[in-house]
């Protein structure tokens, strides 16, 4: 079971790019890296998933170096509505374990 380490919190301003890095030194060969976003009083929401290199979708990019021991979630031009907790998950499908996440606070 790969343990993940993320910063507890981060501050940013509207319009900036935000990068949240997650460490997962014990990642296994079959593990995928998945990021979720959670707003207060709501369930987590899937953002992006990858195995290696770079993945991009309409809301974020995920950068994974060759050794896969870390990953970086990149949010372009954040807005106030991106204030939330972001979770990095590492594991095989159906065995996802959430850590404590990174609380992102976007300021005007």
């Amino acid at each position, binding site marked *: 079971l790969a343990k993940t380490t993320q910063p507890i919190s981060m501050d940013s301003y509207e319009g900036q790019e935000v990068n949240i890095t997650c460490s997962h030194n014990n990642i296994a060969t079959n593990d*995928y890296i*998945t990021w979720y976003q959670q707003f207060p*009083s*709501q*369930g*987590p*929401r*899937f953002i992006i*998933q990858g195995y290696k290199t770079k993945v991009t979708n309409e809301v974020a990019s995920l950068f994974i170096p060759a050794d896969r021991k870390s990953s970086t979630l990149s949010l372009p031009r954040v807005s106030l509505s991106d204030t939330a*907790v972001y*979770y990095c*998950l590492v594991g095989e*499908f*159906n*065995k*996802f*374990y*959430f*850590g*404590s*996440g990174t609380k992102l606070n976007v300021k005007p």
Partner: protein
Amino acid sequence: GAGVSQTPSNKVTEKGKYVELRCDPISGHTALYWYRQSLGQGPEFLIYFQGTGAADDSGLPNDRFFAVRPEGSVSTLKIQRTERGDSAVYLCASSLTANTGELFFGEGSRLTVL
């Protein structure tokens, strides 16, 4: 809507009582998950169903917790002899298949044990 539906949204009970929490997944989703989230913590995995069977129940904390999914759709999480430490938000999620990391979560059932 077409999302995951959980009922009740809030449940207050007394220590020692029995509680049932219901999850109605997205139609056609074969995999269903239960998580528990305490204040300030990330969701904690409890159990995962593939169809009607519990494929992984390693996260259930003890034998007071039990979950069923008799027809492969709706699931019920059952908690016997509730304790104050069971107070948390219970989250249900579903996914189209077992081989995807994209889980769709409901808004949760907040359980308070007095």
